[in-house]
């Protein structure tokens, strides 16, 4: 076997190995049951161990944590008093003045428009509570991020470990570590604050690392030559030089903290805008939930634009105008305060919210049958076969006939013929892949035998990044196997896999259209912006109304979130092809489509792969929220753990999810790296 294999490309070898393992499992599975299902006697009670270990650990550091929690309650309380008791005209004035200071009239107008919307929504007090939370958690995250970044920069041997920790911080779903945080830090807003700081610190740390790496060696040398301790070089020279990049980190950190607001609300203890979204979501009031969600979007936009201005070089704006705005609003506040309505009493947009809600009802009523047939079509012909395979999904009342063993044989024979045809034309890898995919569709992702999944992941890893990556992928998946969470993980893998596939196809096409037509991009761009900042809970309501509880609804909810990076990166990759390349192609007489396929697409491949990578991470992140619709994978386990305060199950399920996401992430990054190397980038 080995001698024939050595002549092949790595891709072909990997595909053949996966194919062989799959065929062996299929052939011997019926006789050797442990091939198809990992024996439960060989799993370790990982959830219990993790639970016991963590409980012990938590008990140990709890006194310290409680002190920290009590200490944080003070700034939290101050920020709360500051934001809530500031009269609303004055608050609007302060934001406008800040806007002017950072970016002139356009920014001041943005601040005015944004806060006016918040005021009109009737959620002013709740919004100010939210801002208080963000105002305390962001500095915490910034300091932590800066410290982590400096640590990685100063101790090069730590860098790899730090990167892994950052990955874990971003891929373990926040819901998974809420329970331990509750046990550690007690109750109330402080827990939400810490959870959002954990989530918001990694982008800051990454940008600090990147910024310090990019400080030019000459500048460093100059700093060394002028003497001074290491900390002086760092704080007086290197960090100021890296300021622009670090400001990008500040911006990302703010956005991450804001997006965590809704998760923090699940714990409660705090009447913020996230709690309002949860309350309206509980009543399935779409209009009201959308309104509360849009308040968060508005904050995100204002904070993003203003902190984004920090990251770019800016011209100075007249200080006197800043003071004039502040003075004027102070005056207006003093004069009018006695007869101005309280912010909580204003709710100009309530009728709009009711209208949106009624519109949703009308739409559901009018299109019920059409929606049902869309759902049935997608379930019968797409999702069910993917999950449980053709042999179980094809039944008289779904496809109109029963799948038989003969059909399986014919199906396999056909795929073999196609595969052999491919390999005779020189594309052995493609041929083997056809057969592998045929086998996967026949069996269904949830029923895939574990040796095949391990071998497949290992083979992909080998092609994408060599032996190390293969070992990592297989080892990480083996951990899930041992933990006993394999079945649930495969369900999660199926659902997010289906969503990623759909996003890759649809998002890729949308990105392509946006690259070809600026008009399409003008329409798509605000949609993308909104999908990324609005709390996704809001969209669960219409999805549920249209398609009811079930996998299809969950699938759509995941797609709505995960498709955005695919669109963005595809477009970005396609429009940034260097002009010289395009000119050369035009000069050699290529048609526009030829240019797209032969020049732009290959050049954009690494960027598109990065988009795919982000789509995968987003899809996994969304699994937890999709569990609110009623899915049965790891997401559900995390909720179960949260409601039972089961530390072990929560962390184990969260870790399994992070493992799946990390393996997928490393594989795609490996391919992107390889493509980039092939293109000489």
């Amino acid at each position: 076997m080995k001698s024939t294999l050595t002549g092949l490309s790595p891709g072909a070898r990997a595909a053949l190995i996966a194919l062989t393992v799959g065929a062996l499992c299929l052939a011997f599975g019926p006789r050797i049951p442990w091939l198809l299902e990992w024996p439960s006697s060989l799993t370790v009670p990982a959830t219990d161990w993790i639970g016991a270990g963590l409980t012990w650990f938590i008990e140990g550091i709890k006194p310290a944590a409680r002190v920290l929690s009590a200490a944080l309650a003070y700034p939290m309380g101050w920020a709360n008093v500051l934001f809530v008791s500031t009269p609303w005209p004055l608050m609007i004035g302060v934001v406008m003045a800040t806007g002017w200071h950072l970016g002139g009239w356009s920014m001041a107008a943005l601040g005015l428009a944004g806060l006016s919307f918040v005021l009109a929504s009737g959620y002013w007090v709740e919004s100010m509570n939210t801002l208080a939370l963000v105002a305390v958690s962001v500095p915490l995250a910034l300091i932590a991020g800066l410290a982590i970044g400096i640590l990685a920069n100063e101790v090069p041997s730590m860098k790899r470990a730090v990167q892994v920790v950052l990955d874990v911080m971003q891929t373990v779903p926040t819901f998974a570590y809420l329970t331990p945080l509750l046990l550690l830090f007690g109750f109330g807003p402080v827990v939400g604050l810490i959870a959002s700081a954990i989530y918001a610190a990694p982008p800051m740390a990454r940008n600090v690392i990147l910024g310090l790496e990019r400080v030019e060696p000459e500048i460093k040398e100059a700093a060394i030559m002028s003497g001074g301790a290491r900390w002086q070089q760092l704080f007086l020279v290197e960090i100021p030089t890296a300021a622009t990049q670090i400001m990008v980190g500040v911006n990302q950190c703010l956005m991450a903290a804001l997006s965590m607001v809704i998760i923090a609300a699940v714990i409660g203890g705090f009447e913020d805008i996230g709690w309002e979204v949860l309350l309206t979501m509980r009543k399935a009031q779409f209009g009201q939930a959308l309104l509360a969600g849009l308040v968060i979007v508005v904050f995100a936009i204002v904070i993003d634009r203003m902190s984004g201005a920090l990251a770019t070089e800016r011209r100075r704006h007249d200080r006197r105008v800043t003071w004039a705005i502040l003075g004027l609003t102070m005056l207006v506040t003093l004069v009018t305060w006695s007869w101005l309505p309280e912010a909580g009493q204003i709710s100009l947009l309530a009728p709009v919210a009711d209208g949106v809600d009624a519109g949703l009802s009308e739409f559901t009523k009018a299109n019920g049958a059409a929606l049902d047939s869309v759902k049935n079509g997608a379930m019968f012909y797409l999702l069910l076969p993917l999950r449980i395979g053709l042999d179980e999904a094809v039944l008289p009342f779904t496809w109109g006939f029963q799948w038989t063993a003969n059909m399986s044989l014919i199906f396999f024979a056909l795929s073999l013929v196609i595969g052999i045809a491919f390999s005779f034309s020189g594309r052995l890898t493609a041929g083997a892949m056809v057969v592998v995919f045929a086998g996967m569709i026949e069996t269904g992702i949830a029923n895939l035998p574990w040796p095949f999944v391990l071998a497949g992941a290992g083979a992909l890893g080998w092609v994408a990044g060599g032996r190390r990556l293969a070992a990592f992928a297989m080892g990480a998946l083996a951990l899930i196997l041992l933990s006993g969470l394999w079945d649930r993980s495969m369900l999660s893998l199926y659902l997010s896999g289906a969503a990623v596939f759909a996003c890759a196809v649809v998002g890729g096409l949308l990105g392509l259209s946006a690259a070809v037509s600026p008009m399409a991009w003008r329409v798509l761009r605000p949609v993308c912006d909104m999908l990324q900042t609005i709390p996704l809970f809001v969209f669960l309501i219409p999805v549920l109304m249209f398609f009811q509880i079930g996998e299809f609804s969950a699938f759509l909810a995941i797609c709505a979130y995960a498709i955005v990076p695919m669109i963005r990166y595809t477009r970005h990759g396609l429009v940034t092809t260097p002009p010289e390349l395009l000119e050369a192609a035009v000069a050699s007489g290529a048609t526009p489509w030829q240019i797209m396929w032969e020049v732009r697409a290959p050049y954009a491949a690494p960027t598109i792969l990065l988009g795919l990578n982000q789509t995968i991470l987003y899809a996994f992140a969304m699994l937890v929220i999709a569990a609110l619709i009623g899915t049965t994978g790891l997401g559900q386990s995390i909720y179960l753990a949260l409601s039972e305060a089961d530390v072990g199950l929560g962390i184990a399920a969260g870790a399994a999810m992070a493992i799946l996401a990390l393996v997928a992430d490393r594989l795609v990054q490996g391919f992107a790296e390889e493509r980039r190397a092939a293109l000489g980038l």
Partner: protein
Amino acid sequence: MSMLRTTVAGLALAAGVGMAQAAEMGAVDEPIKLAINEWTGQHVSTHVAGEMLKAAGYKVEYVTAGYMNMWQAMADGEVHAAIEVWSSNVSDQFGALEADGKVADLGDLELAAKEGFAYPAHVAKLCPGLPAWEALKACAPVFATAETLPMGRLVDYPADWGTPGADRATGLELPFKAVPAGSEGALIAELRASTEKQSPLLIVFWQPHWAMSAYDVQWVELPQGEAACYEDAAWGPNPNAVNDCDFIPTRIFKTGWSGIADKWPAAHEILSNMTLSVEAQQPMMGAIDVDGKAIEDVVGAWMAENEAAWKPVVDAATQ
């Protein structure tokens, strides 16, 4: 779960020192924190309790708290009482903490709750035998969907509330597959969509709930629930299975931090003795959720009009 024993003991001790003078009322200067959970009925019950405590002369603070996640906080004395706890859906953590003596059961709220299989009224036209449960056997295909074919679809409680729908479908040998909803919002969205599309729906639901009247929800008549049904397979229409009957009425009770009795003795008595009926709670929920009134106004008006319902409890504890 054995955590925080020392801290709670410390708190209780500190409380004991503080109440030296006014043994009856206790620490009136410190606010009693009542948990506000995620549903309107609970808000009403809690505000009624809060107003009663205020009438007795206490300071009251309402704190929002996740229903499932508040128990550790209560054990730590950071939240002092939760007025409406459903025994059918309570975190295991409560049992553990109660066994450790950190949180206490403060007695029945006497809110007569009902849980069961339910359907919006229009479904009776699609399955003519309803509300008799036997009709569901023949009607199952009407309720079938892509995920459940050939069986009917039964929308069950979210997985973290248990699986009462699936248990009963098995016990009664109903050809229904239970689909767990992910959240209460998902249950309501199902009711709303079914009412608007006039589509079939069988769902596990409970009252008091504002949606009962908003979507004209009717109960399926299942065999009367009894304790024997859940232990003795021979009991009920299916001789071979348990769970072949309706829900046993859920006990709804009040809970509190175990330190209340020492820190605020009169408040402990008020909370232990207060009750609230469905007849009182449901109209208030409607006024808040359907008419959009503020909870303070609605509860305030009810308190003023129904002194007889609550005043004696406060007077007995304070005079």
